[in-house]
C-alpha cells in the first residue's frame, strides 16, 4: 500500500515535469506523428508507395488523383478527425487511426488537392512542415478541451459504433479481392483462392493471402492493362 502511494507520487511528479509524461508535450508528439503521416501521403502522391492507411481508404484518395473527385475522401477524413478530437480529449486516448492516419493523412490532403493546392503534398520538406503544424494545432485543441471543459459532455459520441462498423468493413475486403481476382483471369483467381485458404489455415486475415496469391499467379500468367 505504502509502496503504491509512493509510486503514485513519483508518477505525479514525473507527470508535471517530464517531457515523456506531461500534457504540454502532447501537441509535440501529435505534431511528429502528423508530420510523418502527412509526408507519407506525399510519398504516395509522388512515388505510389508509403501511405499509412488501409487499401480501401487510400483508394479514395487515388480516385481523386486519377481524375475523379476528392469529395468523398475529404468528407470522410474530415468527419473522422472531428469526431476523434472530441472523443480523444474526453477519454484520454486520442485515436491514432481515425484522427491522424485518416483525418490528417487522407482528409486534409484531399481538401487541399480539391482546391488545387498541390505544393504541400508534392514537396517533401513542405509536407513535413504542413503535417507538423497541423498536428501541433490538433494537439493544442485537445489540450485546450481537456483543460477547460473536461468531462462536460459525458458521451463518446457513438465512437464504438463507428469503430465496430469500420472493423466490419475491413473483413469484407478479403472476399471482395477474391471476387475481383477471379474476374481478372482464371489463373489469378485460382492464385487468390489458394492464398486465402493458406492464410485462413494459418489463422491470418485472408486479405493478405488473397493478394499475395493473386500477385504470384500474375507474375507467371501476366494480364494486359
Amino acid at each position: 500500500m505504502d509502496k503504491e502511494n509512493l509510486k503514485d507520487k513519483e508518477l505525479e511528479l514525473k507527470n508535471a515535469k517530464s517531457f515523456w509524461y506531461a500534457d504540454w508535450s502532447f501537441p509535440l508528439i501529435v505534431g511528429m506523428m502528423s508530420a510523418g503521416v502527412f509526408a507519407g501521403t506525399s510519398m504516395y502522391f509522388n512515388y505510389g508507395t508509403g501511405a499509412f492507411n488501409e487499401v480501401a481508404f487510400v483508394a479514395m484518395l487515388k480516385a481523386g488523383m486519377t481524375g475523379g473527385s476528392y469529395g468523398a475522401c475529404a468528407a470522410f477524413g474530415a468527419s473522422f478527425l472531428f469526431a476523434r478530437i472530441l472523443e480523444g480529449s474526453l477519454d484520454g486516448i486520442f485515436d491514432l487511426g481515425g484522427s491522424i492516419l485518416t483525418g490528417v493523412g487522407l482528409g486534409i490532403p484531399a481538401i487541399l488537392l480539391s482546391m488545387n493546392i498541390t505544393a504541400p503534398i508534392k514537396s517533401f520538406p513542405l509536407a513535413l512542415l504542413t503535417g507538423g503544424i497541423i498536428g501541433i494545432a490538433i494537439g493544442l485543441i485537445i489540450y485546450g478541451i481537456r483543460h477547460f471543459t473536461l468531462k462536460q459532455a459525458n458521451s463518446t459520441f457513438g465512437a464504438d459504433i463507428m469503430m465496430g462498423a469500420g472493423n466490419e468493413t475491413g473483413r469484407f475486403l478479403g472476399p471482395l479481392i477474391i471476387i475481383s481476382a477471379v474476374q481478372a483471369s482464371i489463373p489469378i483467381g485460382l492464385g487468390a483462392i489458394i492464398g486465402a485458404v493458406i492464410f485462413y489455415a494459418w489463422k491470418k486475415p485472408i486479405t493478405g493471402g488473397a493478394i499475395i496469391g493473386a500477385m504470384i499467379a500474375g507474375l507467371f500468367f501476366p494480364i494486359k492493362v
Partner: protein
Amino acid sequence: MHIFTILGESLIIGGLVGLAVGVGAARMFNAPNVQALGAFRTLGEMNASEGDPASHFSFGLGFFFNAWASTVAAGSFTQDVTHRVIPNWAASLLMLKNHREEEMQDPKKMGIASAIVGAVVVTFLNLTSSALPQALQITAVKVLVPAATLLINTVMPVIFWLAAIDGGQRSGIFGTIFGGFAQLIMGNAVPGIVLGILVGKGVEESGWNKITKIILLATILLFVLSAFFRETDLTLLKQLNLNIPMWLKQAHAAFGG
C-alpha cells in the same frame, strides 16, 4: 537517384512516426491521467502478450506480412503498421533483456525503440514495393481497384448505415437523413452516416447541450456549403424543370463555379 530519395524520406518518416507511436502507446498505460495517443485495440493486445518478447514479435509479424502484401500491391501500409507492428516489435525489443512488462510502459524507452523499429519497417516496405516488377503492379491494379471500389461505394455505406440503425433510434434517424444527403451531395453516404451517428449518440447520451448543438449546426453548414460548391442546387433545379434564377448563377460564377 530515385531509390536514394525513397530511402532518405522513408528513414525520416519512419523515425518520426515510430517515436510518436512509441511515446503515445506507452502513455496509454497511464491514461486518462496522461493524455495518450494510440488505440484501445493496441492497449488490449499489448497487455495480452503478458511480457513475453516472442509473442509480441510473432503478433507483430502476422500483421507485418499483411502490411507488406498491401504495400507491395497498393502502396498502402494498412493501419496495422502503427497500431500493431511498431508498438509490439518495440516492446519485444525492450523485453529481450529482462522480460519485464514495465519496460513497455516507459514512454522514453518505448519512444526510442519504436523510432528505430519504425525507420527500419517503413524503409523496408517502401523499398521493396518500389522495386516491384511491372507484371505484379498490373495484377495488383486489376485486382485491388475493383475490390476497393465495391467496398467503398457499396459495402461501406451499407455497413455504416445498418450500424447507425442498430445504434438506437436517434442515430438511426440522423444517420439516415445525413447519409441520404451525403450520397446526394458528396456521392458517398459514409461521411453523412458517421456524422449522423455522432449527433444521434451525442444527443442520446448527453442531451441537447452546447456541444451537440454546435456539432449539428456545423454538420448542416458542411452540407449546405458542399452542395453549393458541387452545384447540387443547380442540378436539382434542372431536374425539376425549373429555370435557374440569375442571382444564383451569379453567386456560383462569383466563386468560380
